[in-house]
């Protein structure tokens, strides 16, 4: 074997300051993954022996059997070098240990490892397992029809099937354990607004029990599934399912350090197990098969959901502010502070229900009365400071076509400031009412102008 690769790796690591993972190396040099692992090992040995200046850091992939929480499991984790022996000692049987990556920087968390492989894998996405040893005859790319079907099915089962966000915590040693407790403490100091956010994020931990039968369980957090707009849209059935399943919502910080779910970067098996997931979830069973591999990909999902959720919340918040009736303020210029919305996590159905309720009310009121219309009237009054204020407002009045007497009925008088700074709220309300009036009145006849002159 020629030793040019050592120079190559040296160039990547020292000159370009890259993180060299075995997967990236195998894709870059076009070698089998096992060869890449050996290359890295060899390189590391050589550099360590030379004892040259720049320190190198390495991460290792350790896999083995151990007993956690009283159940046997097969654990696979990426660990930093300094934690390697500790993790190995914890395992009953160590099945494999190999170099995962070599880099100059001391990594604080595992994100750069994923980032490194991302582009390389993306380029080779059709054949990223070209150099890998994992083979599965059943894993063939789906036809586009199947893909579509799978996507539809994916929408229906609880989108609240959260996967642990523990990309941070899966790396048992890449993140030190005391910091696990720290987030809980520091998060508590923040405002309640952020407490709700952290609640969502402090989610489930996956406990994996992989025997030969490979039974795996997931735990879901109720708050997460509840707050999830998708699961709300697809209804109560989804929520029921979520509630039925064993809800082991453990706080991720404390639990993760003990349960340490596995990481395996074996992306090939993930398509297969994904299909399994969808089938299983349609049955109501306590044990779920969840993809255990490629948890880095999975950690994406809760984050996506989180960000969507936050967006929804902020939009809802905005909408709520607009809806709130403006207090009768005589001061045109002051922009009133709308009171903070207390319940941040209002799911969308609530709002929809509210809207419907209001619209129902209005409809019924419309039908009973005589025809109502909205008239722009200006109302002059003296405000607190003694100045005259004229406000134009839409007043809904009832009238009938036979008599052309408008009876002023200031039941729904909304005063909108001339500047219309928060007129948006009013407009929306008015628009709703206008809509209702327009739908209630069948033939809208313009009132004759003579009515103004006749009646005095």
């Amino acid at each position, binding site marked *: 074997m020629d030793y040019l690769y050592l120079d190559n790796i040296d160039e990547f690591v020292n000159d370009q*300051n890259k993180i060299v993972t075995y997967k990236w190396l195998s894709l870059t040099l076009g070698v089998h993954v096992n060869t890449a692992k050996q290359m890295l090992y060899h390189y590391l040995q050589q550099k360590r022996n030379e004892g040259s200046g720049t320190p190198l850091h390495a991460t290792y992939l350790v896999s083995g059997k151990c007993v956690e929480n009283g159940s046997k499991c097969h654990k696979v984790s990426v660990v930093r070098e300094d934690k390697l022996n500790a993790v190995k000692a914890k395992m009953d049987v160590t099945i494999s240990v190999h170099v995962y990556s070599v880099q100059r*920087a*001391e990594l*604080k968390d595992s994100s750069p490892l994923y980032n490194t492989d991302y582009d390389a894998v993306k380029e080779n996405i059709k054949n990223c397992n070209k150099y890998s040893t994992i083979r599965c005859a059943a894993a063939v790319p789906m036809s586009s029809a199947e893909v579509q079907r799978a996507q539809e099915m994916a929408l229906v089962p609880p989108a609240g099937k959260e996967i642990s966000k523990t990309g941070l915590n899966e790396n048992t040693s890449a993140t030190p354990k005391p910091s696990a407790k720290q987030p809980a403490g*520091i998060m508590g100091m923040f405002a309640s607004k952020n407490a709700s956010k952290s609640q969502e994020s402090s989610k489930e931990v996956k406990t994996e029990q992989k025997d030969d039968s490979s039974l795996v369980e997931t735990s879901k957090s109720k708050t997460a599934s509840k707050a999830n707009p998708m699961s709300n849209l697809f209804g109560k059935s989804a929520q029921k399912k979520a509630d039925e399943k064993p809800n082991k919502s453990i706080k991720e910080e404390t639990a993760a350090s003990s349960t340490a779910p596995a990481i395996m970067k074996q992306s090939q098996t993930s398509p297969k197990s994904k299909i399994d997931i969808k089938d299983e979830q349609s049955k109501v069973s306590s044990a779920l098969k969840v993809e255990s591999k490629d948890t880095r990909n999975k950690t*994406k999902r809760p984050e996506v959901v989180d*960000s969507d959720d936050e967006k929804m919340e902020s939009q809802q918040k905005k909408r709520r502010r607009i809806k709130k009736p403006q207090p009768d303020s005589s001061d045109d210029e002051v922009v009133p502070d709308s009171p903070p919305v207390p319940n941040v996590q209002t799911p969308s159905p609530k709002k929809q229900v509210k809207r419907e309720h209001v619209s129902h009310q209005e409809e019924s009121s419309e039908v009973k009365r005589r025809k109502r219309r909205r008239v722009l009237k200006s109302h002059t009054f003296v405000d607190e400071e003694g100045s005259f204020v004229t406000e134009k407002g839409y007043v809904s009045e009832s009238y009938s076509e036979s008599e052309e007497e408008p009876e002023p009925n200031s039941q729904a008088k909304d005063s909108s400031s001339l500047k219309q700074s928060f007129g948006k709220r009013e407009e929306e309300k008015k628009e709703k009412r206008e809509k209702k009036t327009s739908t209630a009145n069948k033939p809208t006849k313009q009132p004759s102008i003579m009515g103004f002159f006749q009646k005095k």
Partner: protein
Amino acid sequence: MATLTRQDLNFGQVVADILCEFLEVAIHLILYVREIYPSGIFQKRKKYNVPVQMSCHPELNQYIQDTLHCVKPLIQKNEAEKVVMVIMDKEHHPVERFVFEISQPPLLSISSETLLSHVEQLLRAMILKISVCDAVLDNNPPGCTFTLLVHTREAATRNMEKVQVIKDFPWIVADEQEVHMEEAKLIPLKTMTSDILKVSHSQLFCTESQKLNEIL
């Protein structure tokens, strides 16, 4: 996706949006990697399809967002030369400066999604570089703080002082002390050239104070 040219109002806005988003992520990441704040306040989030660390602290986030909100119009008009994140020690002497040099090409247009995914790829690479920058940088002393500076033109500063983009968030001219770093060592981190940020490319480099080594 429609082709946008420089003349479109949207062009500047799109570029500014992309850049400001990237700057926000980069700033949070630098805070995490350089350990300015305890790692407990950071949370993993996703950007450009990779995990990044973002802080959860509301005031810190607000500060960064407000700053970038004010910087955005400058970028839109192509008046911002560089955005600098200065890390200072307890005595407010700059220890490190992360300089983002921005320049935009005068005559280019953006079009099609492939270009934006290319930009995403480049930004991803930038983020990766920030993550490993501690290999080339020395450790900072404890108790560091940070501040954000923008290098721009005189006219723009006048404007910024006149029109407060965000209320109660004034920008002041930076002290000489904060800007000038003694015995600075320049460490280039990443250069990125793309069709929307071309000509003189977008650079990220770090200057580090040598003096610190002597003290330590």
